């Protein structure tokens, strides 16, 4: 009996065909799954790009918040530098005029004495003012870096002081108390540290602004604990409900009016802190205030 007429062979062929059809179905499903997975990966890539764009916008928004503080910090020294330069110009005109006419008679002795006494001080003050502006710009450049992903060794105290200084105009109606201990250095990306500090402080300020009937108070405490550094920011502002507390790290969740907040601030803060192995703990009571405590590992 040949294979072709063997009933077992016919059954074998039938079974083989059935197996092939099942495998074909499986392969079709696998192919569809693969293609859907590819689409999903493309979407994830797009979402990541959009998230990066939002994070970048948030960083720019933080810089915008700082702009007023920077302007204020620069304006003070700039005002006296300009005043000094005006006076120095006037003195120089007098001296040049006297030199040109080859006679000191154009300047009386009192004026000459005053110029000689005043000149070095004016130059020194102007120089100090320019140095202050230079420092402010240098600090701003250091803390406002949005591109670098480099982790630097930083003095947290300096960063907190700078953030408070730059937020000066926003804090003018707030009773600010702070105790900033000298703590060991931390390893952190400078731009991102600024992002974290500004976000937390601005949230506190806004929480206080939401309670205009109450005198605003913010307390900043930086301490060195046994195995970490703790930074706490407490305010007596509006506080948060249980729901807000649970959702505060959700991207795009905001309690602010439409158009005034992106809702990604605290989400980014959490992301940055996680990347740097830091913890954040928030305790809040509606109508009483909020305390945000960030712990930084020792580097």
């Amino acid at each position: 009996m040949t294979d072709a007429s063997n009933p077992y062979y016919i059954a074998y062929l039938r079974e083989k065909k059935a197996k092939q059809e099942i495998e074909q179905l499986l392969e079709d499903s696998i192919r569809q799954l693969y293609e859907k997975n590819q689409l999903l990966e493309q979407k994830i890539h797009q979402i990541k790009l959009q998230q990066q764009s939002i994070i970048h916008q948030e960083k720019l928004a933080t810089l915008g918040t700082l702009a007023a503080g920077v302007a204020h910090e620069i304006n003070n020294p700039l005002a006296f530098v300009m005043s000094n330069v005006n006076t120095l110009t006037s003195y120089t005109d007098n001296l040049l005029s006297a030199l040109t006419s080859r006679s000191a008679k154009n300047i009386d002795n009192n004026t000459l004495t005053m110029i000689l006494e005043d000149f070095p001080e004016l130059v020194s003050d102007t120089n100090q003012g320019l140095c202050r502006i230079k420092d402010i710009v240098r600090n701003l450049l250091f803390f406002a870096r949005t591109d670098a992903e480099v982790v630097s060794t930083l003095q947290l105290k300096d960063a907190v002081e700078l953030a408070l200084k730059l937020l000066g105009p926003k804090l003018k109606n707030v009773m600010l108390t702070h105790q900033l201990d000298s703590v060991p250095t931390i390893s952190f990306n400078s731009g991102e540290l600024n992002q974290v500090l500004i976000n937390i402080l601005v949230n506190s300020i806004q929480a206080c602004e939401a309670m205009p009937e109450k005198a605003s108070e913010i307390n900043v405490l930086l301490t060195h604990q046994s195995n970490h550094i703790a930074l706490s920011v407490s305010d007596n502002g509006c506080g948060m409900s249980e729901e807000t507390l649970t959702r505060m790290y959700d991207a795009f969740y905001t309690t602010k009016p439409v158009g005034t907040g992106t809702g990604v601030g605290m989400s980014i803060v959490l992301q940055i802190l996680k990347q740097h192995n830091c913890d954040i703990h928030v305790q809040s009571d509606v109508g009483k205030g909020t305390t945000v405590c960030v712990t930084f590992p020792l580097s």
Partner: protein
Amino acid sequence: MKGIIFNVLEDMIVEQCGMAVWNDLLKKHAPPERVYISAKSYAETELMAITNDVALMLNMPLQDVVKAFGHYLFNGLASRHVGVIKRFEDFTSLVMGIHDVIHVEVNKLYHEPALPTIISRIISPEQIEVTYRSPRKMCFCAEGLLFGAAQHFGQNITIVHTVCMHNGADHCILAIELQHD
């Protein structure tokens, strides 16, 4: 080696030598109760041992048996993946699409298929050069596959195996000559 290759080998042997021969070969060269599933991987030594035995049985050089299997394999694969083959309008486009289309499709279906590296280059309208690299050194199977593809598209070809891994080279070159009427 993916099970689908064994499935096509089984088809060929059962078709040409009968079911009993396939059963004997399996009994001799595969673990007991071996079942080949297309998407699973199996030791290529099983395939080589079976082909070797077939060559001895038919008193043919192993290379010829492997080449004949490659020819048969093309039809087996093409009948299972009609959609992929339909994407090519002629033999040349298929050869030029081995790396960018066929292997991409294989990678979609099978986990770690251990494909050979194939680089195809059009030398002239009548000549295509295929460079083959694989630790399995299945270049004669590749040659058979190319003959199978040519037959599928009604294209007459000759292949000269100018450089071969079996002669100590680190790659093979298959120089294909297309014969136009």
